[in-house]
């Protein structure tokens, strides 16, 4: 295949398969309007529409936030860390993974805002000059969180956009539509493909990759500190950062696999998203999953070793309490289901891989549920114990964000070259 036809094919992919995408818009719009309606009710009535209470003052919003941020990890991991490690196989999937990151982080970013009792004052978490000389309280992990997530989101966006410029230029050159050529023209910032532009671009992507790499580690480390800094049994652990980062990459790769498998089938991209890609992703899934299993074991082992009263009580509550079913389901999803991937034949079976990935996505959501709800509902003083249950509005907002995420992804698939043209060409060249 000549490079020209590759250009055309990749820029026109979204148009060719537009009906596949348009069909999806029906449920997506339904989910999005559900999200908007639930958010409207939430803002109108207050977070009392949710199931949160005292003592379980954090609920779905935090669980969903951590889950979506986690999913947002794979993108930058693939594009930045693997770029630095010169894992060139990543080239054909990095744009997709980055887009996924972007929309996952956008969905995640909604939750801390909606979570607030008074969301209209969210900016009080940011340092800005004001006549009261009031700054955020820097000892609070929530402030670190705001910085970490915003930095991550902006660097991810920048990285995604910089990477996109040459391809936008290609799209600009290929399109026959006037409007598109104007829009792509503006977006590609006058890219003309000279050697010096390529050299500068290359340097910039490497620089941004260097910048993004610590962020992949830092953002979820800091999210984990929201829990680890609090002095609650089940939260107050020094190994929470690596524990959370591994979990995040685990769920991120699971989401990448789910999307790749679907896309490959619907868009007939077997030549671009090859078995090799999926095999590599599956391996990363196994690596991060195994590390997560180690973290689980470490958590229970340290509690057992310490024999601290409240930690032991919390673990017992987790294993045998009223929400134990969710805990064991989580163990099944995150620990047991992943073990089938050790067998090469099963790993290469895409149906099994798809099922395991879905399991992992569910399991990682349950993990956050167990962490948040189990600890909070089992209080130091027996008198304050109480249960928790998400309401229909909790579910509506969670499910609604799937629509928001899907809509973003559909837009990318429809309008942007989601397989990096230049990098594919470069790889083919080699």
């Amino acid at each position, binding site marked *: 295949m000549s490079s020209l036809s590759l250009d055309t094919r990749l820029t026109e992919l979204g148009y060719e398969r537009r009906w596949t995408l348009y069909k999806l818009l029906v449920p997506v719009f339904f989910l999005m309007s559900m999200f908007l309606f639930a958010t409207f009710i939430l803002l109108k009535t207050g977070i009392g529409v949710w199931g949160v209470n005292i003592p379980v003052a954090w609920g779905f919003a935090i669980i969903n936030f951590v889950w979506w941020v986690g999913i947002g990890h794979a993108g930058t991991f693939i594009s930045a860390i693997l770029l630095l490690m010169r894992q060139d196989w990543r080239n054909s999937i990095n744009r997709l993974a980055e887009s996924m990151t972007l929309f996952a982080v956008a969905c995640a970013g909604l939750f801390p805002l909606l979570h607030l009792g008074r969301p209209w004052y969210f900016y009080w978490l940011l340092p800005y000059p004001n006549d009261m000389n009031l700054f955020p309280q820097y000892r609070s992990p929530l402030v670190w969180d705001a910085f970490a997530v915003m930095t991550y989101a902006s660097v991810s966006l920048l990285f995604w956009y910089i990477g996109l410029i040459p391809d936008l230029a290609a799209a600009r050159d290929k399109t026959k539509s006037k409007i598109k050529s104007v829009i792509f023209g503006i977006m590609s910032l006058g890219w003309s493909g000279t050697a010096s532009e390529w050299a500068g671009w290359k340097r910039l992507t490497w620089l941004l990759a260097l910048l993004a790499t610590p962020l992949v580690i830092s953002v979820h480390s800091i999210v984990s500190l929201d829990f680890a800094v609090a002095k609650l049994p089940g939260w107050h652990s020094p190994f929470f950062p690596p524990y959370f980062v591994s979990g995040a990459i685990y769920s991120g790769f699971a989401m990448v696999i789910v999307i790749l498998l679907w896309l490959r089938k619907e868009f007939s991209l077997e030549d671009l998203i090859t078995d090799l890609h999926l095999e590599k992703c599956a391996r990363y899934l196994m690596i991060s999953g195994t590390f997560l299993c180690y973290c689980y074991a470490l958590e229970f082992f340290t509690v057992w070793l310490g024999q601290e009263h409240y930690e032991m009580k919390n673990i017992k509550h987790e294993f045998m309490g009223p929400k134990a079913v969710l805990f064991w389901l989580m163990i099944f999803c995150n620990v047991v289901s992943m073990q089938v991937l050790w067998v090469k034949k099963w790993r290469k079976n895409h149906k099994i891989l798809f099922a395991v990935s879905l399991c992992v996505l569910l399991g990682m959501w349950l993990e956050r549920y167990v962490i948040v709800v189990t600890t909070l509902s089992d209080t*130091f003083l027996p008198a304050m114990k109480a249960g928790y249950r998400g309401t229909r509005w909790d579910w509506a907002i969670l499910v609604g964000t799937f629509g928001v995420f899907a809509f973003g992804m559909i837009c990318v698939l429809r309008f942007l070259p989601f397989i990096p043209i230049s990098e594919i060409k470069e790889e083919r060249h080699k």
Partner: protein
Amino acid sequence: MSQMMDENLSREFEGPAELSALDRREFLRYLGLFSSMTLLAHCSRKPANIIPFVNEQKEFAVHNYEYYASAFPSRGFAQGVLVKSYQGRPVKIEGNPDHPWSRGATSAQAQAALYELYHPGRLTTPLINGKKAKLEDVRGVLLSFRPQDAKGSDVAFIIPALHSPTMTELLTELRKKYPEASFVSPSPWKSDSFTTYDLEAVNSLLTFDEDLFSGRPDYLILSRAFMKRRKMAIDTNSPHLLNHLYVVSSSPTLAGAKSDDQLFVSRGAVWNSALDLLDELEGKKTSNTQIQKWLPELKKSGLVVIDRSLHPDAGALEALINSHLGHSGKSWDTRLPENTTVTELQAKMKAGAIHTAFILEAEFTLDSDWQSALEKVPVKITHSLFPNETTAKSTTIIPASHWLEAWGDIATPQGLITIQQPLIEPLYPSLGIHRFLSLLLGDKREEQEIFESKWRAKTNWEEALKKGVVSGEIAKSTTLPSKKIFTRLPVSRWEILVRPDPSIGFGEHAENPVLQELPRPFTRLTWSNALLLSENEADHLKVKNEDLIRVKTENGTLEGPVLITSMVSDGMIITYSGFGKKKGTQISGNRGFFADSFNGAKVTTVEKIRGKKRFARVQLSMHMDDHPPVKTATLPVMKPPQKATPASFYPEHPIPAQEQGPQWGMTIDLTTCIGCEACVAACQTENNIPFVGEDQVKKHRYLHWLRIDNYIDEKTVFFQPVPCMHCEKAPCEVVCPVNATVHGNGGLNEMVYNRCVGTRYCSNNCPYKVRRFNFRSYSAVPKPWNMGFNPDVSVRDRGVMEKCTFCVQRIKSGERYGETVKTACQTVCPTEAIVFGDLRDEKSIVAENKKSPRNYDLLEEEGTRPRTSYLKVIRGNA
């Protein structure tokens, strides 16, 4: 190409080219303009400090409060109160320290009274023959009332059991005017005599089903006296001085919770155990080992109290037993000016012999007997504060004035009269009961005149109003009937006992949302009642908490949800009255089930039925594990060994200069806390804490800043009031991202509502879980409830965290006027279990308590260094 380049270049460098066009003069002109502008911008008046309102100085004080002595009718007797008034409206109720029946404390019911005064559901317009009327018309109706029979044989007066000398006089006159009219009170608490006890003198106390620490109008002084004696033994560290409290009971009681030993038996067996005691005292051997165990201690200056509703001979038995023991209560004649009984009047009504009924106590005429009897009365003139089943039937309704709106005089059984001063003009056209009766007698005088002319003649009127108490009025004392032979009660398979609800009583406070939401001791239930069953019986019936059961009795069928507790004996079904009203306001309407008419009814069957009713309970787990939050000790108490401060990398911060002022702290004595919940109600009214409603309590979102944790270990009960601990190393402060909770100079953990964005992280990190969150707009209560809000405390909006502030408004006001600071919970506590003060002040009680060997910190191992600490529980010998 080069031409294009030139064009590009000139376009590129357009700006600088123009700048260079500026000549020297123009440049200097601009320079002058800009520099003078810069200078001008800096010209302003010298900054001056203005004083923020929060640090208000004495001369700027805006809130001038006035206090008036008045009387809260507590089951017909007077509880002396001081009412705090702001701009002509009552905003808080305190105990009257000069009143012998309150001594500065009040019950929860008195604390919450403002929620009845400002209730939006009150009857607001008089109704005459179904038509809206004015108050003048109502007066005319009463003044011109003439019965068909001049002697009044077809007239009935349904009167309240209120011990007011003036009301008694008015009723006596009415009886003279209409000698054949029926006078009766439907009140569940009326009795011929009332016995008072001096518990301070008593060494050991045994009660049979009587709760001395709750419900009784004199519970404040009874609990205070008992605990005073116990504290004396503890303070002198002498075990032999400890008083003893034993309880034989069929239902859970606060006295039982504080007892050294209690026995749960069925209602009949309670009576029989009292007879066993009598037998033992008279030298006859019985098989009652429990009584035998307590006997030696009882014989040493003991006292026995028997619930009068247990048996018609209960008073006689008590008198006889106490004659053996050396102590006894003093009985007072508390008969009402009645001339018939409830059943007789109902029969008369049903026979159509009553034409006009004046219903002055509508809230106790809700059962089916009364309702069917009232059906037959053509003219019903009802005087009531709130709508209910009886007002719904009445064609003439005269709204009653709240006790804070009307004049009155209420007595204690000993005859001390308390003047009930109105604090506010009636909010709606309404009449007080005295005015109602005097109008019927043709007396047109205003209320104040009636009382002033009466009492001015007898006493120093101004002094009486100031002090709230009129001395010198002697009540009639009486003796309990004497009897020698008593019959035993049969013990049946099932017995049903309906107790007054600890919070809303017999239903007289059912319209009070604060009292509805006040957690009941032992069950921690709010907004409804339940059927209390023992664990064995629940297993037997295969029911769990919240399952419905059906109890068939001779009086009909009772259906309700089960609540399992270890605090009742097998075979007993305990439930509470005051619920199940159908035609009340939204507060009382359809809460729980109507149980009042089932008391003592013969039970035929008890069975499980389909369905569940979810409870609104504030506490679900009452079991302490091996890390008990409540600690116990025995006398003599030894100082626990000093624990070494754990090593730390970070040296302690030196106390900065501005922290040299008072350092606030609190101690809560778990020995003397009787769990009456008065402090919770006091905190709620002082700090504008809204009620949240049954549904929100079900979701664990109640807002009480102060809660009383109940822990039950079989029969042993512990109460632990938990306010904010005001930790010196507060975990909540570190995690707040916006500095909304910070440490104050006095050691207070302060909450800045305006700054709070509602992340709720502070609540998560609080080991005591004392923080409360406004999940909804709870403070937007219907008007005019907001009139009762404390003007010194801000009302919190949706999305804001709140918690106990140690009554910071009282601290500020105390600092301003140099008064001793007392928190709302401390002031109201009848047993003075809560002590607050300056820890720096060596002489303060709180500083002394902190040095006590009984003092301990809750969750000490968490290292939060709480400013609130507890004194361990000490009980007498079992």
